[in-house]
């Protein structure tokens, strides 16, 4: 590789950082840049709930310090959002109107909160917790709130719910069957989740839906289709994640739910790779695309994408935990289809 190469990684999570580490290790001369629209260096998302309660200080959230990037000669562009990719000229366009060139690109932009179409009228009232930025915005509000309403569920949502319960908040949750989209909770699973939650102070609402939300922060009034009325200081929505790929739309890189990549994590455009939860990976065994979640998957994919970008020919395999535990119920880790079961 020549020293003129500029490997750019969009995304500062486990996939992006492991891709960067491999690229630096294998090519000492090239420029390596990581871009993230968040302002914080690489951090443990699973620890965000602890950060909200105050049990995890900010420094313990961090996986890597800024000094470690400097030591590795990896440039980190934090708080910078890529708005558009021009694959013909290999140019990234930022929202702050800067243009930079890449030689090869790794997209590891992760995923964002999913907004259910039925909830769009209430977007003004809903809060989402998917990132450090979200947490910074809501941390004090959560501390000051007495009553909190959660809509949906999903893995993060239930962890959040447990945290609020431990903080002594009065919490109500409307478990939405499609919270784990596209994986639906079976009635049996739902009953088990409700049974387990009944041991807490959380008020659980099931087989119902939002009919109306009125009010303002600190004084929301929620009505359900079954006539239940609730008051809340804050309303949070946890309805799964959706790949964060808006910036590649129109670029020529193919996408479906996520960015379509082959088993080598290469996109449909030369010199552009994708990995982590923003990628929809082709599985030749089932002749279908799947999206994965979970930290180990992201790490593995980041490393494989980097190796292949440098000329290797590694096929990705699903790794990591097969199941997540949701209130005592085991949920499979892949989204659309589970590779191992097919």
């Amino acid at each position: 590789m020549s020293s003129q190469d500029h490997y750019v990684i969009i995304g500062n999570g486990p996939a992006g950082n492991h891709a960067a580490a491999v690229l630096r290790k294998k090519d000492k001369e090239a420029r390596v840049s990581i871009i993230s629209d968040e302002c914080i260096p690489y951090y443990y998302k699973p620890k965000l709930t602890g950060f909200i309660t105050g049990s995890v200080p900010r420094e313990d959230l961090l996986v890597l310090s800024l000094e470690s990037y400097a030591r590795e000669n990896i440039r980190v562009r934090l708080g910078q959002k890529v708005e558009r990719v021009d694959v013909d000229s290999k140019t990234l366009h930022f929202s702050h109107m800067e243009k930079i060139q890449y030689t090869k690109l790794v997209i590891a932009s992760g995923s964002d909160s999913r907004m259910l179409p039925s909830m769009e009228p209430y977007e003004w009232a809903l809060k989402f917790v998917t990132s450090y930025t979200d947490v910074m915005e809501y941390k004090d509000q959560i501390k000051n709130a007495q009553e909190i309403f959660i809509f949906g569920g999903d893995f993060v949502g239930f962890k959040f719910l447990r945290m609020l319960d431990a903080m002594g908040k009065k919490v109500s949750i409307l478990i939405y069957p499609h919270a784990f989209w596209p994986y639906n909770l079976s009635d049996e699973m739902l009953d088990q989740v409700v049974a387990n939650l009944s041991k807490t102070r959380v008020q659980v609402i099931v087989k119902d839906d939002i009919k109306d939300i009125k009010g303002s922060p600190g004084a929301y009034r929620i009505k359900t289709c079954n006539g239940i009325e609730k008051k809340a200081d804050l309303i949070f929505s946890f309805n799964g994640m959706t790949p964060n790929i808006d910036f590649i739309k129109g670029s020529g890189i193919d996408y479906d739910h996520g960015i379509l990549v082959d088993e080598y994590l290469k996109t449909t455009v030369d010199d552009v790779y994708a990995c982590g939860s923003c990628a929809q990976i082709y599985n030749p065994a089932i002749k279908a695309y799947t999206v994965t979640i979970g930290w180990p998957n992201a790490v593995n994919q980041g490393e494989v994408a980097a190796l292949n970008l440098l000329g290797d020919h590694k096929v990705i395999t699903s790794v990591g935990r097969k199941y997540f535990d949701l209130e005592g119920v085991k949920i499979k880790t892949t989204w659309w289809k589970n590779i191992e079961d097919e």
Partner: protein
Amino acid sequence: MKEVNIVIEICGSAGEGTISAGEILSRFMSSQGFEIMSFDSYPAEIRGFGKCVAHTRISSNPIYSPGKQADVLISLNDKHSISQLSALKENGVLIYDSQPTKPHQEDNSVAGRANPGTIPYGVPLGMLAQKATGNTRGRNMVALGALSCLFHLDKDAFTESIKARYGKKKQIVIDSNVNSFLEGFNWAKENLKKADAHSFEDVKRPKHKEKLILNGNQLVARAALDANLTFYAGYPITPATKIMEILSKELPRHGGVLLQTEDEIAAIGAVIGAGFGGKRAMTGTSGPGFALMTEFTGLSVMAEVPAVIINSQRGGPSTGMPTKTEQSDFNAALFSGTGDCPRVVLAPTDTKSCYDATVLALYIAEKYQTLVVLLLDFFLSNSIKNIDVPRKPAKKYLNANIAPKADELKDYKRYRFTKNGISPRSIPGTPGGVFFATGLEHDEYGRPNYSETGHLAMTQKRFDKYRSVLSEAPKPQMVISEQGEYDIGVISWGSSAGAAHEAVMTARKEGINAASFSSVMLSPFPESAMIEFSHTCKKILIPELNFSGQFADFAAGILKRPVEKLNFITGRPMASEDILQKMREM
């Protein structure tokens, strides 16, 4: 209750409203009850689009120094602001124009070059200003609007502050600025997600009475007027020109005269002439002008004529760095010129003391019939602080000439030997008070006399008088504790004193046993007070803004012990953070 201590910098190009935005911010914050200190830096060249920075520190508590690193950088110009990023704290906030007129190439954008950890807020400054007013001139106000929203500042009060700032302008100017501000505020409210922890909501505000927001030059001019200055002569020079500008308007209203001379030599000549005529007279200059004035300073001392020179120091030598601050004229102020030429030198330590020191300078010059140099610097001259309304000078400071009694005029000896060296001075026109005044050595009548004994006696008289000035010295400023013994004693002077005192206060909170000492009077120096202080300190640290440690060498000579020097010639004011760091290392 929360306390706030924040430094906000606005960086732009000359003509982009950078300095005026900073001024508006400072005035508004002061009106909200906060302590403020602000300092602008701008290019020396009058023409062009050089870099301007308006630096403002805002605090719930008293402020002694401007703060080294900024918590917030508002960028009105990417190119200039990129070079200002090094002054932004690691987790600082950056507010920048997210919709420039054309895209930036790689690394030409301040947002792109921001240090990792910076919290950026992109605001379409130009676009919003255009929307509000039809042109982009209001970008600075849009930025203040966004800042106001992000940091929870009172929008209505801020709007009133802007209206007050432009109160004398046409309505369209007021409306343009207010509308731009509101556009920025509303846009930020709709579009920005708060990601930093700064907030002015529910923070402690010191309760204070009416405050004046002035810089050192303004206070010097105000003090001079309050102390009955009647004549000012000068030649414009940065950073002292503002004093002359103010006095050119105000002095005639007070019955005085301002003379713009052809050069600095003429200015000091005219001041000595006015002083001889019994008028309170003053001139102001900077290093290059002070060098020229040296030609005349000896006359003031030899002929015992009151004269006050303000030397607002800037980077030197020669024409040096006109818009950068430095404390490198210490030696020139105390020792320039020929012969044994004792002169009084006062160096205010903060904005407020510019007032008191000016009153004292005019008083000492008149009472002791001698030259007084008032040593300011670019930072003191230009930094703005909100201060209590100064107390008008006491009566004794307004008329200090010791006139001859009637019986003394029967055989009037203008330079009569006295115990303290002060000879009663007749003002020209006083019947019987005619005398010779000359730069030549002279006898008690003022007649030239070069005798061995005469020269010795007259020199002794001038030095006796000089030493007796010490009784007028303001009490040294000290930060000490009941312990009475310290590991580190910080001795400072001039504008570095505030930073030194602040550093010592912070150091003590960290467990460093330290104390500080500074004196406004540099010549004659209160030596015994400094020696006494030094005896309580194991190590002595002397921070100052010059290369060689001019004051440190002077102080070491008095203390007769080694001192640790800390010197900067960055053109920026002394930072308490740097002194603190040095103390940690000692």
